[in-house]
């Protein structure tokens, strides 16, 4: 399909040519420049040395893109309650489907799922395909894959969005492999072109690089998206769209997996896993005042962390310490409350996506790295902030 050819005669500076490859895929063997198995086809070499490297494409696999219609969303659920990522994906699916004039489909599988099926109709799907079977009570890979396969064969959607949940991350690759098609994990930006090709942008290398990926010659196009990347549409009072109940042979729903027991998890989360962190610093005068930090963290679905002085005072667990002698965190949001921002602390948190620092000292070091430097006393700022967030959270 595509390869890179080397024009040996055009090589002038051998050293420079070899160095251009970030993956060490270029080497000289018997005086000949070869591309070894480390090549990722990033084509950087072609960009830098267009006379040495040439990209040739030949016969592409052909897919009839018109035969695939619709943007489908897999409805993820836990104990018969829909995972909110599913609604966010319906919103994204709607935006893309409208752009290309396609319908939005949802796939719902499980046991006793009627209530969930109706709930989906409040979010603007055109058609919900429902597979309701006792064998689908627990998520088990073979029956879930079989149902997904049945759905794709019946509906032929061009794009399929799956939530990046525990189930979604296990199920989507399995189904994509069955259809020998592409799957892009954890997309943060999705868009669709007029020819129904899906533009998928995702982070790689632990978020240090973004990659723009497409699936030009295969259908369906699979993407997984994590929770809270897109916006969920508002729930409408009226139900639109239709429910289509589907049957599938019980023979396809057998599994080599038996669920013996389900144990509720006790919530022991470490601050490294938290998306939102509220840090309590030295400005807290009394131990009981920490309740402000805990309340704020609760409201934001986050965790409280602290700095060294508070650990030494015995106010919090050492596992909550951020900094060189504690943990390194990279949350989406960190709010430091009365933290001065010593270098040892900053080293453990400065790669957070958004940093809000509250400190009454206008010269606090923490302000050097904060995206929002809020000069104020935590005893004045936090109570009002908490009160206002509570008000905002109350449904209108």
């Amino acid at each position, binding site marked *: 399909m595509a390869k890179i050819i080397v024009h040996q005669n055009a090589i002038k500076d051998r050293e420079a040519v070899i160095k251009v490859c970030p993956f060490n895929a270029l080497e000289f063997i018997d005086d000949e420049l070869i591309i070894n198995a480390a090549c990722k086809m990033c084509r950087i070499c072609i960009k830098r040395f267009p006379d040495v490297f040439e990209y040739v494409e030949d016969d592409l696999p052909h897919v009839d893109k018109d035969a695939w219609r619709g943007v489908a969303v897999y409805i993820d659920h836990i104990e018969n309650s829909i995972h909110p990522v599913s609604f966010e994906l319906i919103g994204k699916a709607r935006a893309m489907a409208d752009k290309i004039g396609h319908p939005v489909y949802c796939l719902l599988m499980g046991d006793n799922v009627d209530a969930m099926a109706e709930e989906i109709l409040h979010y603007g799907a055109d058609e919900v395909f429902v597979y309701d079977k006792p064998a689908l009570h627990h998520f088990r*890979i073979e029956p879930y894959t079989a149902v997904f396969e049945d759905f794709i064969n019946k509906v032929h959607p061009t794009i399929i969005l799956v939530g990046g949940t525990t189930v979604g991350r296990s199920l989507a690759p399995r189904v994509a492999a069955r259809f020998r098609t592409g799957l892009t994990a954890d997309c943060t930006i999705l868009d669709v072109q007029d020819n129904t090709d899906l533009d998928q942008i995702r982070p790689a290398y632990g978020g240090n690089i973004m990659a723009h990926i497409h699936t030009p010659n295969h259908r369906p196009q699979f993407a997984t998206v994590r929770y809270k990347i897109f916006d969920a549409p508002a729930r409408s009072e009226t139900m639109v769209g239709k429910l289509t109940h589907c049957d599938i042979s019980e023979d396809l729903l057998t599994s080599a997996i038996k669920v013996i027991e389900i144990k509720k998890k006790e919530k022991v989360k470490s601050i490294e896993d938290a998306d939102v962190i509220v840090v309590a610093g030295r400005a807290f005068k009394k131990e009981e005042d920490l309740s402000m930090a805990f309340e704020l963290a609760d409201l934001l679905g986050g965790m409280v962390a602290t700095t060294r002085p508070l650990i030494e005072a015995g106010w919090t667990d050492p596992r909550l310490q951020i900094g060189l002698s504690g943990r390194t965190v990279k949350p989406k949001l960190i709010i430091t409350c009365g933290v001065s921002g010593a270098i040892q602390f900053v080293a453990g948190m400065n790669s957070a996506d958004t940093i809000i620092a509250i400190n009454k000292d206008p010269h606090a070091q923490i302000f050097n790295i904060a995206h929002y430097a809020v000069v104020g006393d935590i005893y004045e700022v936090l109570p009002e902030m908490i009160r206002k967030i509570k008000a905002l959270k109350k449904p209108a």
Partner: protein
Amino acid sequence: MAEIGAEEHMNITVCIKQVPGTSEVEIDEKTGVLKRDGIDAKMNPYDLYAIETAVRIKESQQAQVRVISMGPPQAEAVICEAYMMGADEGCLLTDRKFAGADVLATAYALSQGIRQMGAFDLIICGKMTTDGDTAQVGPEIAEYLGIPHVSNVLRIHAIHDTSVILEMNMAESVEIQEVMLPCLITVEKDIFQPRLPSFKLKLQTRERPVKRISFKDLEDQNERHYGLKGSPTQVLKIFPPPVNTTSERWEGKGEELGSRLAQKLLELKFV
């Protein structure tokens, strides 16, 4: 395939990968080229847990631990490292025809390589890699081998002749499952503390070969299933992530600031 009794030992295959030594890679804004300073290679850290799991099983019962990797010839280093942790046998899939493989083509080639290595009862993968970060290769290998898989395994309770009892990590619960062999599992990083490579084993395994598997050794000889040709996804470009360059200073009365912050959090979708 799962007749362990007949062979008297369990065959465990662990899939491992060599990844860049750091994920702190940067892209030169002007040229779009990945800066290569300090990019040495190492074993994908999550794979250490997979190897440890296999070696622990081997310590508790008769088992043979094989490791398989795909990559350039240099990736042999991670197989030798697995030897130092207790793996018995290793093989490296390496061929220019495998180059440019995306998840699907990688999983397919590995599944072909695993078949090439002989019978298998249990396949163990790490949770994900630190370069691709997809966590998809394991499930896709299982699909191509036609065996069940369980992702996010937290613990292994018991291994019987024909099944394994394990704990799967779900978002809000832990499921105890019995899975018939052969099967594939991906393990969480807390399953066991990986041991350090042993110097004694390093000496013992110095001469142990790493089997090379190239395209011509595989059963499926259709070139379109491997490497770039077998990859449905294509990377159009790579670019540095957007950096939050906001730098605002807010001053004023405490209460006003608190109210403004709440509004900002709503705007940033944290409320």
